[in-house]
């Protein structure tokens, strides 16, 4: 039985290793490790990755053994290593034989360049390379078994998951902070200080960072809007981009010279865009808000796609510029000055974020916010206590849409261009992801989520083509390790940890909440 489980682990990790080779991750690891240590060869990095996974396979196999005596762990590690080695050796033999025979493997599997194969074979003949691979991987499995015997299991997972919250609660529990928070005007002082910092922010940054952080800011406004819809009211909206598109197209049509030549003032267009987007939210909301949960999700998704396809279609080319979009969208002017550079837009965006956060905060703490919360928790009960749910749902939809329209206006005006490809489903998904990663229903969470989501691809730039792959994997990992988000609202955190505490699991990391 143990042998079967161990060989399964070996096969599994062997397969993962094979996938790494097929994905070209070995080459990537080689380049990165080579870059860090200034090595001329890519082999160390590639083999480090392969060996790491093989050792991990050995570790996993040993964990399957119920009573770890010395012999049993070693056997488990050996079995896993053998299976692992067999998997890799056979595939390597097959690939290099095919390559030697002159088959164009690259036509189907683009990462299998002769150079990538040479990293693994050292230029040996197929059989010799396979034998070498087998021996090395078997040893690695044994090393994994010995590793387990040598070390206690370190609870890194718990530390990782509790990290951000622990930092936050510890920080809030500091006596100085507590004293400050209990002062009369502490809130106002905090807001004022934050604003002051933000005001000087754009001076410090260069043009590139002003642009990048401006994009983050636009996503923050979008996120704040969707946060109302999803986080507060609990309505899953997958077509949020539609309202963003409406805002962008309104500013483009009303200020650009090309299709209509209306060329209105930017500041006049902003309220028009906001109002029309909100109106679109209400119009869409009336028929669909009676649906629940996932039906709403798929209908809103359809609505988003409809808006995008319509803006692209030939039927509306005269109105929206069709697939080519609208160029030279007007920027804002102030007393005759042109203030449409990235630098000034940063201020507009900051102003927008502050306004949006202010509105959101006040809505959340008002009667409306409590009604939304009640609705999110249980619609039937909310209705029974006299909340007119349709009206509040419409309000949530309209507010969210208004914020999206606002950010659309800024977006199109800042880029001086708008086209249908700016408004794909991926935008809606990105905004939803940032709301959930940040922590649903939490305003600072939205900012954190936007920074991570839009900042992460910049950080992951070293991974080049593997950026989106890593991003997808991180999304999954994040949901498993920390489903409540980076900066969850206190209420949501309590909800999520209620279950763990009820089942008697000790909750070591978090001290009681001491915030206001």
């Amino acid at each position: 039985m143990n042998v079967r489980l161990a060989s399964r682990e070996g096969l599994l990790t062997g397969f993962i290793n094979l996938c790494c080779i097929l994905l070209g991750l070995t080459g990537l690891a080689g380049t990165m490790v080579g870059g860090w240590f200034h090595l001329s060869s890519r082999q160390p990095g590639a083999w480090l990755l392969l060996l790491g996974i093989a050792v991990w396979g050995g570790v996993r196999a040993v964990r399957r053994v119920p009573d770890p005596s010395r012999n049993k762990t070693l056997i488990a590690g050996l079995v896993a290593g053998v299976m692992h080695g067999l998997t890799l050796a056979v595939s390597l033999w097959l690939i290099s034989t095919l390559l030697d025979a002159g088959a164009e493997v690259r036509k189907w599997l683009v990462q299998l360049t002769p150079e990538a194969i040479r990293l693994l074979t050292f230029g040996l003949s197929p059989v010799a390379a396979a034998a070498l691979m087998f021996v090395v991987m078997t040893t690695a499995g044994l090393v994994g078994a010995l590793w387990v015997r040598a070390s206690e299991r370190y609870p890194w997972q718990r530390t990782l998951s509790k990290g951000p919250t622990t930092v936050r609660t510890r920080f809030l529990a500091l006596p100085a902070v507590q004293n400050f928070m209990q002062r009369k005007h502490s809130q106002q002082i905090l807001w004022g200080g934050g604003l002051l910092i933000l005001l000087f922010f754009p001076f410090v940054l260069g043009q590139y960072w002003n642009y990048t952080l401006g994009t983050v800011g636009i996503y923050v406004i979008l996120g704040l809007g969707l946060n109302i819809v999803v986080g507060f009211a609990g309505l899953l909206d997958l077509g949020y981009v539609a309202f963003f598109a409406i805002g962008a197209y309104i500013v483009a049509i009303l200020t650009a010279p090309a299709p209509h030549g209306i060329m209105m003032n930017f500041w006049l267009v902003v309220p028009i865009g906001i109002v029309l987007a909100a109106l679109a939210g209400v119009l869409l909301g009336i028929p669909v808000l009676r649906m629940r949960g996932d039906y709403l999700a798929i209908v809103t998704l359809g609505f988003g796609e409809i808006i995008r396809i319509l803006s692209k279609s030939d039927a509306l080319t005269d109105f929206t510029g069709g697939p080519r979009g609208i160029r030279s969208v007007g920027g804002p002017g102030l007393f005759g000055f042109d203030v449409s550079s990235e630098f000034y837009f940063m201020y507009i965006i900051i102003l927008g974020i502050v306004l949006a956060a202010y509105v959101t905060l006040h809505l959340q703490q008002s009667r409306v916010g409590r009604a939304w919360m009640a609705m999110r928790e249980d619609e039937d009960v909310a209705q029974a206590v006299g909340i007119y749910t349709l009206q509040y749902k419409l309000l949530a939809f309209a507010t969210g849409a208004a914020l999206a329209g606002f950010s659309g206006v800024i977006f199109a005006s800042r880029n001086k261009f708008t086209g249908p490809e700016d408004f794909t489903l991926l935008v809606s998904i990105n905004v939803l992801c940032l709301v959930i990663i940040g922590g649903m229903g939490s305003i600072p969470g939205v900012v954190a989520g936007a920074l991570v989501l839009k900042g992460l691809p910049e950080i992951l730039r070293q991974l080049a083509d593997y950026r989106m792959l890593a991003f997808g994997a991180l999304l999954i990992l994040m949901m498993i390790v920390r489903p409540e988000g980076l900066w969850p609202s206190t209420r949501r955190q309590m909800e999520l940890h209620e279950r763990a505490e009820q089942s008697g699991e000790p909750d070591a990391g978090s001290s009681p909440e001491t915030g206001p």
Partner: protein
Amino acid sequence: MATAVQTRAKRTFRIGRLIRPAIGVVVAVFVLWRLYTVLASQSFGPDTWVRFAISGLVLGSVYAVIALGYTLIYGILFMINFAHGDVMMLGAFAGYFTLEAFNGAGFLNKNLPSAIISVVVAFIVGMSVSLVISIALERIAYRPLRTAPRLVPLISAIGASLFLENVAQLTFGVARHTYTNPEVIKRNIGWTLMVGGKEVLVAYTGVLTFVLSLLLMIGLYILVQRTKMGKAMRAVAEDKDTAALMGIDVDGVIANTFAISGALAGAAGVMWGLHMGVIYHYVGFIPGIKAFTAAVLGGIGNVPGAMLGGLVLGIVEAVAPAALGMPFQLKDVLAFSILVLVLIFRPTGILGEVLSGKKA
């Protein structure tokens, strides 16, 4: 206070009653008017209509097979498996490689039996690969989130979808790959129908797709309704805790469900490849969304409903733009409009959903 609330409730009740008929009348008038103008102008002959209907039927049957997988998983876990379309894409690639291998070995076009064996093996390989990926997906990305709030598995599924798409892009490249069909079922040969004095081609691959999707649907229906495993699946869908108390291995049943839906997605992928011909790393995305739409259209959780929803959606996509005199670019707009309309008038889908009231 009480009277104010009452009158407000009464007033809104009336408005609520007016919305639906108003939308219905507007849509009906619009459709009839466009239909009349198109039919009066006679811009399409009967053969064109038949051609549209056939292509819609085939497309719809592929949607239907994908939708079956969605509906199964939704029925049990109440989650949108966003990565389902990408599971289908990987199945399509597996079938593609199988056919390429047979072709490279010279077996594919040797004689009729060898062609049949190749196609059957391609289906088996495609289905098994998708099955394994689907199980792995459940094990890695969804199982740890079983008790989390509903949006959390959705984000995880979006992550999985991005991951799988990029895996395919990095391994197989961004180029489009063309399926190598055996000579006997080339995409451009088939039976010819005579409609209104003109020939209409019914491709063999289309017939194969349609018949196979019907068989899969019937098989799935029998599996869910008549076997012990199906009974366990329905019990888990109804109430996981009670099912566990009755001695049902809930994790095992859920894994089985993912295996079945994965296999269906793989079959859909190979069908797509054989009939449409071109596959690439992004090929699963649009059919995936359409198939979920189809599942909702038919009533999610309902096996015949998914099939019906898929067929309706495929036919609407193929016929409606022409029937309403609109450019074909707008076919997706029409497809989604149908969805919105059906849900406005029948919120539970065409055939009604099979969901336990608690989760609804």
